[in-house]
């Protein structure tokens, strides 16, 4: 039946700058200082190696469950480097690279995964939230912070990360709607890594792109090649500038891939094809960035080798530090700390109970 079409003034675009062979669309090349490019590369490599090392430690039984980031370095680093220190970063649970860039101590990460609450401490000046396990629930905190920034007439922004699976949760919807209505300075970075544990993107939602979900909230949405650090950077830069200048939120879908297990408790061979992983290996974000940097003569094979050595010893240092720290931790009575600003009487007496039990052992 013929009806009147409503003009939605809307389109969804896909952004790609550095293709999977590291070839550049030079028209779109963002203006990034050499120094920043080199630091981005270093962080991507560092976190790749740290990720591998943690997997190793976990397999040895030295750590509990954690969620590897392998393959998602570009979509995290490309986005997060755009932030100022005074901006807020709100991670989900798979943004180790972005967290480390923001100053999260690697030793603290190891502590958390080894079961010590101390590792999730947030240093006084840091504006990076602790990881958030309940999927999508952190998005509401992000827009709440963004509202507070706007309320205080400050100039900072919030960048919040989440996965493709997270887009199905009610909290995702409620956050983006709030961001739309109140035009909060919050940038949503969706790490569409194709999988939510065993559920592929295609079964998560029937929408063609995740980016188009922004339309429901009157927000701009864009899809980028999430393994292309330059594309992620460009989209994030534009979005952060929009937010900072009072024009509100943007939704960025980074199309990337979870090259490893969901968490160390997961066995993807049960539900996904190795072939798929191989295809994505060819689109690795690091090698393609390295080719770009080499083309720009900012990086040589030698540099890479030296960097790998440097990283190895940095990680070794972190692990040593971690092992030392663990020895000094684990007083059971610590569980009563930080429950309330002031310990209420019933916790004081329960704490005494624990201390008494400890003394009697």
């Amino acid at each position: 039946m013929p009806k009147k079409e409503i003009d939605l003034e809307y389109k969804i675009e896909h952004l790609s700058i550095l293709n999977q062979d590291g070839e550049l669309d030079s028209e779109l090349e963002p203006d990034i200082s050499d120094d920043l490019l080199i630091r981005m590369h270093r962080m991507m490599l560092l976190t790749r190696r740290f990720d591998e090392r943690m997997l190793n430690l976990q397999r040895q039984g030295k750590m509990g469950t954690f969620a590897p980031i392998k393959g998602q370095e570009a979509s995290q680093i490309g986005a997060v480097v755009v932030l100022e220190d005074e901006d807020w970063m709100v991670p989900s649970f798979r943004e180790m690279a972005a967290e480390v860039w923001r100053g999260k101590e690697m030793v603290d990460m190891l502590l958390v995964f080894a079961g010590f609450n101390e590792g999730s401490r947030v240093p006084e000046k840091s504006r990076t939230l602790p990881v958030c396990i309940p999927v999508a629930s952190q998005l509401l905190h992000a827009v709440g912070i963004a509202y507070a920034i706007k309320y205080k007439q400050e100039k900072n922004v919030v960048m919040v990360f989440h996965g493709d699976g997270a887009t199905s949760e009610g909290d995702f919807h409620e956050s983006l709607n709030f961001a739309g209505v109140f035009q909060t300075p919050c940038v949503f970075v969706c790490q569409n890594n194709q999988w939510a544990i065993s559920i592929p993107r295609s079964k998560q939602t029937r929408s063609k792109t995740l980016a188009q979900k922004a339309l429901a909230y009157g927000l701009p949405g864009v899809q980028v090649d999430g393994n292309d650090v330059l594309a992620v950077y460009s989209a994030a830069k534009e979005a952060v500038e929009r937010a900072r200048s009072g024009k509100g939120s943007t939704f960025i879908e980074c199309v990337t891939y979870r090259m490893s297990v969901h968490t160390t408790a997961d066995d993807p061979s049960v539900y996904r094809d190795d072939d798929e992983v191989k295809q994505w290996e060819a689109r690795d974000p690091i090698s393609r960035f390295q080719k770009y940097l080499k083309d720009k003569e900012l990086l040589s094979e030698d540099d890479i080798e030296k960097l790998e050595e440097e990283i190895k010893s940095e990680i070794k240092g972190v692990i040593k530090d971690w092992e030392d720290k663990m020895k000094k931790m684990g007083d059971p009575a610590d569980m009563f700390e930080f429950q309330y600003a002031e310990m209420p009487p019933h916790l004081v007496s329960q704490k005494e109970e624990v201390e008494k039990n400890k003394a009697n052992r």
Partner: protein
Amino acid sequence: MKKMTMVEAINLALKQEMEKDEDVLVLGEDVGMDGGVFRVTKGLLDAYGEDRVIDTPLAESMIAGVSIGMAIHGLKPVCEIQFSGFSYFSFHQMEAHAARYRGRSHGRFSIQMVLRCPYGGGVRALEHHSESREVYYAHTPGLKMVIPSGPRKARALLVSAIRDPDPVIFYEPKAVYRAFREEVPEDEETFPIGQSEVVREGKDLTFITYGAMLKPTIDAAETLKEEDGVEAEVIDLLTISPLDDEKFTESVQKTGRAVIVHEAHRSFGPGAEMIARLVEKSFLYLEAPICRVTGYDVVIPLYQREKDYIPDVKRILKGARETLDF
């Protein structure tokens, strides 16, 4: 002193705290233009503008979650959930985050927020508008749970809640909203969270209650005096969690007998915890089983049968007399 209803007294607390501290703001469904469906936030929008008195879209998880974010960035949000029956839409945010950011960040973040909601029966409302489920919150470590019983305490407790560095669930007994007036001082008044109050002294029996149940309990105590010559002590809990067990312990060690009165369901209800604490700390003082006069373990019926669900003076008297006769 001016005589105020509970609605007016809460409104006063909000107004004065907003006047004093720019970081205090109010958000929720219909709290702005409409002044709240019970008019508790009336006049705030005109006084403080729409950035500070925020009419939100219809989404409770959002209201709680956004408040958490605001608190992280240093604001002191007072959010309203229109009825406690809809607060379970935001329960995961309160349980997983409001209650935990302090611990999770190892002391860095305070979630200084208040989640206000009207609760309980008594206004001839539709389904989901009359529940009394304070236990969900009271059982959750990291949260505080406060229930005032009258206008003056409501005002003082809300001021304390707003200033409290921890998240406070503030249940307002809607049956009391306009039921009576009390003198409320214009000048600042606070009341410590975590502290109950002996509102009537007695030596023969201890009533422990709170919220809308305070009034019928006091009435029952008066009747006991008149008809039975019994002096009942009445304790108004005010804070449900952390539970102030000192005052009722002291009282029951004096009277030897206790009756607990609440609207909430009986099983796994708030009264059970009070009994457990009394047994733990005052076992040898107990001269009779502790009696629970409570809502039943059914969905609270629509208003025609509500009065049979909610404890009234007769049921309280019956419980008290059985306890006295034991």
